[in-house]
């Protein structure tokens, strides 16, 4: 709560004075329209915005991918110049990792996790809004480099000294480092927010080992983010200082060691890849039990393997540097460590298979994608284990074999998991299901297209095709599989776009049918989100659910009878909370998160083009910080469902994040 807010001891219902702290930017009062999205602090809307933004960036990254495949379809192709190709593959990787996979994970975490733990919102709703806007505006800024600097061109991991001003004089890499720095603030603040939510805001009775697996994976992911982002931040700052202020961190002439960049980047980069996959693991751990009609096999092992991956992920970063000259002792240590990290991942795969075993499987689209993750990720995991064998990696690294590996785990793994989650949770978010027929086409085209695109890349890599090559030569023998991969990529593109088509068509059909509500529990689900109406009411729960076991909702529907048989005793519809918002007050919307987020790219552009621009940017930051701090969490002037007079506002709405002025609030 804002620090100078006076808790007005008014009886309920009486309006208090309007609060206009700086004479501008009173609390927004609209209840519909664009402003509501701009100023919302509702975790559900923020989750939807994360998802929509990620889809937008997915299209950008996907078009870049198709351009790459067109260029590589034939040898000595001149479709793209070397410079254009370098920018396109760099932006493809950067956009996909930072602006697609991570935000989709954030979308699901933001929307579903609070509901799954039985909370009304996250711990710091305004910071949550800030996290989204800073990601989105930072991502937009990064993508303006296409027009302004030609796009970053150093590869998504941007090694020194090639990333320095001597070898990459265009501003593309400045956009990369500054844009991602800004996006990183969103991840960091989001991590603080979501961890606090999981630890502090669970429903009564929900101990840690009664949380859904998805919540556990979200928790581990957020811890990984919390500790990994600062390391990337340091790397990016060192690069920015080198490029803009002539520092010498990567200046070999002055004695610097280029490997410093690699170490810093990969200490971030390896936890990064685990935090990209863990949310998808979590999603699949919800989908498979639901549609196998039995609980997840080995809940404790699933939880502990996730935590183990989180811990062990910190100890393997230099497996990206096996040939960088780190010395055989280091290579040995990291090779062995990398092999063992396969163990917890393997446990998960086997536990999912064991959940399928003996189940009564409903093979709808969500389930197909979930089983797809299990199989496709395994392929990526197996190639990963072969990389862990360091001598072999001296042949494999930097080839298309690696490209195949990470696409199998990121696309076949993370993205398939996200598709599963989309189909699974769409009715909860929007009140209707996605069409199953289109969904099947979606799945099969994606699976076929994906494997036709990336399967041959294993072969190409082992036949010696290095990565990041804008072209190749007939004499090398790469022609055939490259053409196949290109064909596959277009099939994959069509398949992927089908989900957007599905969203559109399903919505239209639903509207045409008079918007019949799908009900709170269309899948006969297990976790708490199915105990509220669809779409989720703004306040989530009428009353805080009291939890007594894992899969509590399921166990209220299905009970063991006197014969030891498990029988259904209630339906989801009967048990679901009716969605009555009476007596609930919610955190009020606010402009400040957006304003603060918008101020950061201004500083960013200032760093690139004209340092004087930093001053208005910094002033706007200070203004936004103080405006935020001085703004009460509730404007008592607003209509009822946004603030009841009287109650001391205890939404624990944290103050602004960031290094300068920390939260200035406290809790009652």
């Amino acid at each position, binding site marked *: 709560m804002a620090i100078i807010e006076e808790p007005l001891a008014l009886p309920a219902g009486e309006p208090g004075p309007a609060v206009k702290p700086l004479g501008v930017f009173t609390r927004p009062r609209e209840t519909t329209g664009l402003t509501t999205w701009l100023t919302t602090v509702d975790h559900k809307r923020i989750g939807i915005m994360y998802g929509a933004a990620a889809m937008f960036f997915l299209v950008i990254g996907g078009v870049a991918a198709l351009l790459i495949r067109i260029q590589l379809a034939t040898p000595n192709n001149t479709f793209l110049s070397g410079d254009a190709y370098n920018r396109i593959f760099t932006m493809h990787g950067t956009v996909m990792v930072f602006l697609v996979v991570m935000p989709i994970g954030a979308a699901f975490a933001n929307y579903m996790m609070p509901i799954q733990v039985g909370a009304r919102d996250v*711990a710091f709703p305004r910071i949550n809004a800030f996290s989204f806007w800073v990601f989105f505006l930072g991502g937009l800024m990064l993508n303006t480099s296409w027009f302004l600097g030609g796009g970053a061109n150093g590869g998504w991991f941007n090694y020194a000294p090639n990333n320095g001003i001597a070898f990459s004089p265009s501003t593309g890499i400045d956009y990369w480092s500054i844009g991602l720095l800004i996006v990183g603030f969103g991840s960091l603040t989001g991590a603080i927010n979501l961890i606090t939510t999981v630890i502090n805001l669970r429903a009564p009775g929900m101990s840690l080992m009664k949380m859904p697996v998805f919540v556990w994976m979200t928790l581990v992911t957020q811890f990984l983010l*919390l500790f990994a982002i600062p390391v990337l931040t340091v790397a990016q700052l060192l690069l920015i200082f080198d490029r803009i202020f*002539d520092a010498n961190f990567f200046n070999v002439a002055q*004695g*610097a060691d280029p490997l*410093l960049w690699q170490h810093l980047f990969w200490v971030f980069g390896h936890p990064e890849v685990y935090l990209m996959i863990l949310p998808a693991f979590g999603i699949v751990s919800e989908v498979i039990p639901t549609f196998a009609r039995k609980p997840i096999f080995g809940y404790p092992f699933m939880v502990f393997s996730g935590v183990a991956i989180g811990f062990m992920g910190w100890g393997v970063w230099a497996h990206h540097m096996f040939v960088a000259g780190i010395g055989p002792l280091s290579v040995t240590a990291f090779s062995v460590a990398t092999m063992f990290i396969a163990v917890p991942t393997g446990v998960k795969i086997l536990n999912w298979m064991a959940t399928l075993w003996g189940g009564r499987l409903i093979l709808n689209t969500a389930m197909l994608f979930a089983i797809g993750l299990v199989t496709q990720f395994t392929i990526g995991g197996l190639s990963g284990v072969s990389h862990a064998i360091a001598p072999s990696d001296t042949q494999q690294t930097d080839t298309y074999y690696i490209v195949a590996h990470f696409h199998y785990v990121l696309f076949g793994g993370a993205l398939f998991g996200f598709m599963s989650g989309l189909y699974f949770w769409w009715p909860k978010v929007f009140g209707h299901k996605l069409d199953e027929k289109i969904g099947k086409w979606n799945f099969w085209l994606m699976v076929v297209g994906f494997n036709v695109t990336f399967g041959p890349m294993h072969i190409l890599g082992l036949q010696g095709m290095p990565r990041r090559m804008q072209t190749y030569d007939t004499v090398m023998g790469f022609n055939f599989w490259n053409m196949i991969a290109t064909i596959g990529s277009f099939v994959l593109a069509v398949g992927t776009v089908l989900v957007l088509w599905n969203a559109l068509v399903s919505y239209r059909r639903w509207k045409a049918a008079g918007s019949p509500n799908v009900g709170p529990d269309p899948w006969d689900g297990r976790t708490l989100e199915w105990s509220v109406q669809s779409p989720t009411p703004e306040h989530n729960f009428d009353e805080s659910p009291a939890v007594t076991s894992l899969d509590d909702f399921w166990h209220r529907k299905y009970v063991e009878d006197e014969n030891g048989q498990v029988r259904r005793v209630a339906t989801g519809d009967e048990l679901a909370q009716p969605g009555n918002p009476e007596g609930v007050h919610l955190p009020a919307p606010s402009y400040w998160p957006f304003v603060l987020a918008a101020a950061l790219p201004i500083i960013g552009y200032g760093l690139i083009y004209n340092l004087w621009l930093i001053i208005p940017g910094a002033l706007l930051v200070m203004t936004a910080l103080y405006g935020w701090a001085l703004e009460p969490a509730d404007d008592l002037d607003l209509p009822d469902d946004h603030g009841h007079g009287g109650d001391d506002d205890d*939404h624990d709405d944290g103050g602004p994040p960031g290094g300068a002025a920390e*939260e200035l609030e406290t809790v009652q």
Partner: protein
Amino acid sequence: MTDVAVPAEVVAGHDAHDDGHHTSLGLSNTKLAMWLFLGSECLLFGALISTYLLSTANFIGEVVAGNPTVLATIPEALAEEFAAEGSVSPIFDIPFTSASSFILLMSSLTMVLAHKAISEGNYKNLRIFLATTAALGASFIAGQVYEFTVFFREGITYDGNLFGSAFFTLTGFHGVHVTGGILMLISLLIVSFRGKLQQDRAETVEIVGLYWHFVDIVWVLIFTIVYLIP
């Protein structure tokens, strides 16, 4: 098991997300958030300190080996001292920096006293100690600035060589964090003067105090690693 007993206070319609009532760690949301943030800051400073150590080691290696490009960035006398010592210690004024470190340490004490004051409802002392903490922090920053100007005069610049870049970046980041803390303290002071920082908000001061102590501890680390250990 179809009947689930719902705790009374839940039925009363309290938001489930408010509370300090049933947190697992006994920390309020804001305090937990501050601890998490400080956890991430550990990694930030860890990476900066590692960078400093590597960069300075490389720098000294080049100086000792007589690399002309590197030697050209510092005055000859200084280069000789560095080479003789095998470290950058000759440039540091340990007594001065010790005094300034002591000042920062004392500011942590006054911070604790400020929190104690507000917990007891003693608003006069709260203001005194907040102001003192801010003033001590500002003295520390002044000391840093002075030290930097001495370095510039002695020929160590930010963009000159690896040591300059690394040293100023590390200590600069710390200084920015201290400055941010000072701004927070002043804000608290102003709020207190307006009468809005009451005893029931003691936790706010505690949380700012957590940040301040962290910044102090980081300085102890930096002082030890950079200044004291050759």
